[in-house]
């Protein structure tokens, strides 16, 4: 896992039901597995915008971009280019 995914995973471990020890695959669904709900996702979004100094357009708020570590990683890479 790259730096961005590790950062997000650390954030999730501090801010969600996910345990410190449990592992999460980069393609696992955050919502289907009960790791994030809608408010949690909003907070995660704000966190990402601040940390990476990006703005996320509404039309990118889709499951493809936001429901997995891989999706979020790709989104950040795309927007910080």
């Amino acid at each position, binding site marked *: 896992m790259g730096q961005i995914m590790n950062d997000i995973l650390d954030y999730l471990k501090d801010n969600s*039901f996910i345990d410190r020890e449990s592992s999460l695959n980069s393609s696992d669904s955050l*919502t*289907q*597995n*009960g790791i*994030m*709900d*809608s*408010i949690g*996702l*909003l907070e995660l979004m704000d966190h990402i915008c601040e940390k990476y100094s990006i703005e996320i357009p*509404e*039309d*990118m*708020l*889709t*499951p493809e971009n*936001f*429901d997995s570590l891989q999706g979020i990683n790709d989104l950040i890479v795309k927007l910080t280019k």
Partner: protein
Amino acid sequence: MRIDAYIAEYARKTPPQIALEEGKKSISYRCLDEDINTIASSLMDFGHCRFAILAESGIQYIKMLMAVYRSDNIAIPLPIEMPKFSLERILDTAHINNIIATETQYSRFGEDFFERFGTVLVFSNDTSVETRRKRIATETNNPELRLVLYTSGTTGTPKGVMLSDRNLVSNAESIINVLGIKSNDKAALVISPHHAFGNSIIDSHLMAGGSIGIGTMNFMESTFSLIESGVSIFYGVPSTYRILLRYPERFRVAFGNVRTAASAGGGMDLATVKNMRDLCSNIEILPMYGQTEATARLAYLPPEDVDEFVDTIGRPIPGVMLEVFGDDNRSVEPNITGELVARGENILLGYLDDAITTEKKIIDGWMHTGDLAQKLPNGYFRLLGRKDDLIKIGDHRVNPREVEKLIENNNDVSRVFVVPVSHELLGTAISLMVIPTAGTEIDTLFSFCRKNLPGYLYPTEILFIDNLPLTENGKISNRSIMEEYQNVKSSM
């Protein structure tokens, strides 16, 4: 009549009409009715038994729920957003021998979680049932019991609210009436279907022969696309609207063809109403009030009165009587504060396996809501906080919500919250948490309190905060205020 019988009726009358949509999937009344029959056939040899349902929101959940109804069993939907230990706490007290789960939830919760059940049925896509274990045990239940909904548990242990077919049908009828729901209406269900509000959307729209688009609030683009797919009635809790309003331009487009925006699960504020109106001038905004114990709804505010009376819950829905009772359980005059009580066919049978709490909730046929209220001269009702939230200071009973209103209405502040804190002499005193505006001055607030409040309400301190102290359900209560206070203090 049972709710699922209406689906069977529409399967005969309007078979190709779409009943449910979810993403790219959709299902007609005819197919929905057939699938319910197929699933129900695996439940037929149980005789009025309790079935926990563990399923994410979606078409599959509604099929499972209706199949439990059709097989004459009792549905107990588990609120899957709760952490595992909370669900286990519910299951420890609820004596549920049987469970049906989706494959997704079965693998998420793991085999160990299901060991407590005698019967475990797992549904994969559509209707195929895998019986992991089947042990039918005889149960004695209230003969009218059909559905048990768990309250969100704002106050400690979640309680199982027992509802009958009559409760479900009568409340859905009232809601159809108030909202004017027709078979050509399409509802958006983006809140949890496992609680009273979401469940009432399912019941009322299927009873009207209309359709329901099922989604979530997780991914805004998907939510807005759902709304744009021809939704005529949108339902949300106030925070649902606040979240959607973070994207005003998208909101304007998506809600352009929505007829009614209905809300429940907390008071709608004027700022949110104004923001919605500014973007969509034609939209009908319809705030509603209710409780799980009343199946869902008790009152509604007619859209034409939203601007003037947004701080009230309006009037009772058809079939419901509301009154304000004093401590002697008799009606008080208008403008006098008492407890809001209700009666009607939607009032719960009781709490599951808890006769003592039931006796306190329903007294002489009146359900005690626990909400403090006043009846206005025009027949509307204004809520004044929870009865449990009354604070005892010395020998005075103080309603913190009234104190907050008084300070807010007479000072340059955004919001005020009264926090009960311990006091050496009085036992309890109050502190204030204030969301300031640019012009808020602490000294002015202190002197206002000195001049306008009795001495025992003079705040021990005034703290500034940034955000509303909400519970996870988006409500404000003494508990959420006290939690925020602890957070603020510990970070000071």
